[in-house]
């Protein structure tokens, strides 16, 4: 093992699944790096493969029809894709845990919320923690009175349920948190509460986080690094400042252009024309080429190389220079 390896490293991850007799290319050679205690934002639109990546890291993809075709996932130098299911089970919920998008369906409707938290503690017990005590403590930490231990999920509002999910995820002080659109289903004011809570707890326990979202605003608030994903490939990768101040990939630029500006008035928005490609039938070259105004024959030839524009800023586009020049002004 090389010793300068990051805390989490995803290398050339390829995931496919079968749907309706066709093969969906969900994730196509994704590379990610995340340092201890850092936050990486994974930004992309519906169907870009964000959730699939998170589930691959945890190895909880559905058994039927889903397959990790290749790649490696290193956590602290250990390849998670190679260890036994039993070993992996000890990592889930303990070293890595996950927060899901929809709090309405993420909790078991017939189990008491307290028990759902206690369960994860019991599974990764270090014998001197009392699961029930720890669960009550976690409830208080996420801002729910411990008396509500005995209640069922249907007695909680959406925001409260998401707090319970967070409590489950953080009950064992994991080193890595995979947050899959944790606030998308919530109202703005509740979203602010939940983001705040996650931030506070992460800082307290020095947890690294992979934050999956489609909301650039959330990324701006929470993340240190950003990876922009499009049709299962990372098109741009860099620090938050690099991505927000100097977006280089035409897709990233388009994404920013499509968001209505909160500070300036503009008559028209700048949408990205066209649609994301059909994941069962991806173009051979750059997946964004059909919608890209810089596209040329070169883009469609084959896999696009990743270029470094600055230290730690990667961009998968063969027209970087033109793009950068045109967007300078």
């Amino acid at each position, binding site marked *: 093992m090389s010793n300068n390896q990051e805390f989490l490293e995803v290398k050339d991850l390829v995931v496919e699944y079968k749907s309706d007799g066709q093969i969906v290319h969900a994730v196509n050679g994704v590379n990610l790096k995340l340092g201890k205690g850092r936050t990486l934002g994974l930004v992309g639109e519906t169907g870009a493969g964000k959730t699939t990546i998170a589930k691959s890291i945890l190895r909880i993809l559905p058994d039927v029809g889903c397959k990790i075709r290749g790649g490696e996932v290193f956590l602290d130098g250990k390849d998670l894709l190679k260890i036994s299911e039993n070993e992996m089970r000890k990592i889930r919920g303990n070293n890595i845990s996950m927060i899901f998008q929809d709090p309405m369906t993420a909790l078991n409707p017939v189990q008491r919320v307290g028990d759902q938290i206690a369960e994860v503690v019991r599974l990764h017990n270090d014998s001197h923690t009392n699961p029930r005590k720890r669960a009550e403590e976690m409830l208080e930490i996420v801002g729910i009175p411990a008396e509500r231990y005995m209640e069922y999920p249907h007695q909680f509002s959406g925001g*409260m349920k998401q707090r319970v999910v967070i409590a489950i995820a953080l009950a064992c002080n994991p080193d890595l948190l995979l947050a899959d659109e944790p606030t998308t289903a919530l*109202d703005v004011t*509740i979203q602010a509460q939940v983001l*705040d809570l996650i931030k506070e707890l992460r800082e307290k326990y020095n947890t690294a986080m992979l934050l999956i979202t489609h909301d650039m605003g959330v990324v*701006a608030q929470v993340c240190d690094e950003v990876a922009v994903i499009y049709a299962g490939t990372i098109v741009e990768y860099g620090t938050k400042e690099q991505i*927000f101040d100097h977006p280089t990939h035409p897709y990233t630029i388009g994404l920013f252009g*499509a968001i209505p500006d909160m500070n300036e008035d503009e008559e*028209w928005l700048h*949408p990205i024309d066209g649609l994301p490609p059909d994941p069962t039938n991806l173009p051979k070259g750059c997946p964004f080429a059909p919608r890209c105004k810089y596209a040329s024959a070169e883009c469609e030839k084959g896999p696009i190389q990743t270029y470094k524009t600055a230290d730690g800023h990667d961009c998968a586009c063969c027209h970087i220079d033109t793009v950068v020049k045109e967007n300078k002004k």
Partner: protein
Amino acid sequence: MTPVIEVEHLKKYFTTPRGLLHAVDDVTFTIEKGKTLGVVGESGCGKSTLGRTIIHLHESTEGVVKLNGEQVNHLSGNALKKAREKMQIIFQDPYSSIDPRKTAEQTIMEPLIVSKKYKKSEIEEKTDELMELVGIDERLRRAYPHELDGGRRQRVGIARALALDPEFVVCDEPVSALDVSIQAQVLNLLKKLQMEKGLTYMFVTHDMSVVRHISDDICVMYLGQVVEKCPSRELFKNPLHPYTQALLSAIPSVDIHNQTERMILKGELTSPINPKPGCRFAARCPYVKDACHQAQHQEEVSPGHFVTCCRVREL
């Protein structure tokens, strides 16, 4: 000139097993021709119910809705049908708002057929026009909804709403189910249509950046009531109601260099069932005082800027 839409003291109550739900409680506003009124608020604040009550998809409990100066919310039968042709709605969910068993063409044609005003050839012609207007390819004519993506479905929904040449359109979160890049396409389309046809919009949404972009005036709703109402720019520059302030501050900004300290509200939204008099926001408001539990009145703080908060002048 009379405004296209005048809403006066509109109320819509629902009876639920737990009591009377004040979904829309005493809402008053007007919208001028060709303008857009944005209505913002969180889930359960009654913004969708408000839109549906105005165009008479729900029967109003009390109050008046006027279209071009004539009261329409008590109409029934043919008069209602006539009024409805002038008032249309675009729905939130492009997946459930279009009949999955009808082709794009059939969905767009239906209002024309139902109105019985057009001949067959005219219907065909108008459908073509509409499809071009909203940007649906000719080849998608006979496509079923499941063959279309969200953006295209939403375009079909828009075409259906515009088929009878309405004057007033309620846009009920028309872009919140769409991805950002598609969302921008649809917002631009809505704006283009407004300019070309002089449409009047009521734009219901929970997304502050979208509402800022599209609206001339904005109403902020909380649990069935309007807490603040003013021109769009004014609202973002100078929000007065504590709820509006919290709402604006809660939006995660894309600007990474000017991240301001956010005002985080305690507590959660409840539902306005048998509400007590007084400010409904009081339970979560950081500035709450005894006076807040008395009945509240709308005040014009500066020209065109209305706020319903008893402490607005102090703050």
